[in-house]
């Protein structure tokens, strides 16, 4: 390829394709390079997209996007071997706030948007590294090919090999990521509606903690799609070393928990997938989000908000892609793509929800990595309620039942952890 483009985008995911569509629609010559057979074939996520970014970018999405179900029910469960305690939120209002989807389909849809705006998307090409001349990124190398462009947008995902090999990011460490393992299970529409108490287009998003990860930091999720559910576990890799069974069996034990088993009964496994996810927010960002001739977006930039119960990746990725495009347009107007001109990207990120939210929750990670949340508290609440409901003629007040069942936790632990959670999440 001896071609020259205005902009090269590494990775055809939510961030890269959004940047590409925005720039192509403004007349830039954009090349997107994707390692998979087609855009979407290497993407995996939990299962839900928050729609607010789509309102701005593609207002027609309500009719067009590959939505599975609109989330109307939210469940949070603390689970032990033999019991669970659930907070179940439901609204009768149909608010188009978030929907379940397959990321593969969603990325294919974003690809159509980018291509119809004029971006060139080349698949089956893993980018090896950036071409850096006199400290400036001038293009990318993929095998024997060199592609030159004025500016490169790096949207390569969580395994940021290109950044690492180019000396622009340190190697990812276990503290910054969690491993998600997912099973997609086919069930009929009627079975899903009945088992989750939903109507045809209504969906449920469910997070569970405790037993699913054998009480290590992390959790499980279940999302309802039209005719399948996605079920998975997520484990903070810094605690991976403490796992007592192989992770590939951990997800099986979760699916076989007596209370989950009846939900997936009669289902059929469609796919088994795994992917890393950033969990440390801005603490996982590369040292610089932009530099001479390049910008970093999406998971590669650590742009995923992980609050334990709410996990948002796609909206952060797309917004960062949109802002990267805006920064490139501004830099183009100034006639330079050096670090100074591209620093507008940092400013745009600061003004947007991307860095405003990630910085607000800068310490969420430190709270969520506390193992007590996934072990002692999960056990305590279940033991306490079990005892409370076990009527046997002994007078039991809630307070004394709590004191009786708090196990190793001290009242000081309870107070400290409650404050940390309330202050940081």
């Amino acid at each position: 390829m001896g071609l020259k483009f205005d902009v090269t985008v590494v990775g055809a995911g939510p961030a890269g394709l959004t940047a590409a569509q925005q720039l192509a629609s403004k007349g830039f010559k954009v090349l997107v390079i994707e390692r998979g057979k087609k855009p979407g074939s290497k993407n995996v996520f939990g299962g839900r997209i928050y729609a607010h970014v789509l309102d701005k970018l593609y207002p027609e999405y309500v009719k067009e996007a590959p939505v599975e179900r609109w989330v109307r029910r939210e469940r949070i469960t603390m689970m032990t071997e033999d019991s669970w305690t659930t907070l179940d939120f439901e609204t009768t209002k149909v608010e188009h706030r978030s929907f379940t989807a397959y990321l593969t389909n969603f990325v294919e849809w974003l690809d159509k948007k980018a291509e119809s705006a004029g971006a060139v998307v080349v698949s089956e090409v893993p980018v090896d590294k950036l071409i850096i001349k006199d400290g400036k990124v001038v293009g990318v190398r993929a095998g024997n090919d060199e592609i030159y462009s004025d500016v490169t947008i790096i949207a390569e995902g969580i395994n940021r090999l290109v950044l690492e090999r180019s000396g622009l990011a340190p190697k990812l460490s276990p503290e910054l990521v969690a491993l998600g393992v997912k099973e997609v299970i086919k069930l009929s529409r009627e079975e899903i509606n009945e088992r989750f108490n939903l109507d045809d287009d209504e969906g449920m998003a469910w997070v569970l903690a405790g037993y699913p990860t054998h009480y290590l930091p992390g959790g499980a999720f279940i999302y309802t799609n039209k005719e399948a559910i996605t079920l998975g576990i997520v484990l903070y890799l810094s605690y991976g070393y403490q796992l007592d069974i192989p992770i590939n069996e951990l997800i099986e034990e979760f699916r076989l928990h007596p209370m989950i088993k009846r939900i997936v009964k009669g289902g059929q496994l469609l796919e088994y997938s795994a992917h890393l996810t950033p969990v440390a927010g801005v603490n996982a960002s590369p040292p610089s989000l932009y530099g001479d001739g390049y910008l970093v977006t999406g998971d590669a930039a650590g742009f995923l908000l992980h609050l334990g119960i709410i996990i948002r990746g796609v909206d952060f990725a797309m917004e960062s892609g949109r802002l990267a495009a805006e920064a490139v347009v501004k830099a183009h107007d100034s006639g330079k793509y050096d670090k100074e001109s591209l620093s507008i990207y940092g400013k745009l990120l600061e003004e947007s929800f991307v860095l405003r939210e990630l910085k607000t929750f800068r310490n969420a990670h430190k709270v969520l990595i506390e193992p007590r949340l996934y072990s002692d508290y999960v056990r305590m609440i279940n033991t306490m309620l079990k005892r409370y409901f076990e009527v046997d003629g002994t007078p039991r007040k809630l307070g004394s039942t709590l004191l009786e069942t708090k196990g190793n936790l001290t009242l000081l632990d309870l107070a400290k952890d409650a404050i940390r959670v309330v202050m940081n999440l």
Partner: protein
Amino acid sequence: MSLERKIPIEERLNTNAWDVDQRPHIRIIDPDQCRKCDKKPCLYLCPARCYTPGPDGTVLFSHEGCLECGTCRIVCPENNIEWNYPKSGFGVQYRFG
């Protein structure tokens, strides 16, 4: 395939679409390092069980079922894994990602 039991990992991987390259994209750099490693987190943290115990405390690697998550690269305490993405679109082809 009944979901009422633990499904062996091979069976689960078989439900996926694949286009496996003959050439492995991941390589254990120095088998001696594995011999000295007592934790061997690759053995239980690889979700596809690509890593299995070999003779004399070594670790055997097979790239065929690799889900390309990148976990092994990050958890290997010896930095003993040369990790690449498969070339030319090869590897797992997610349909329900």
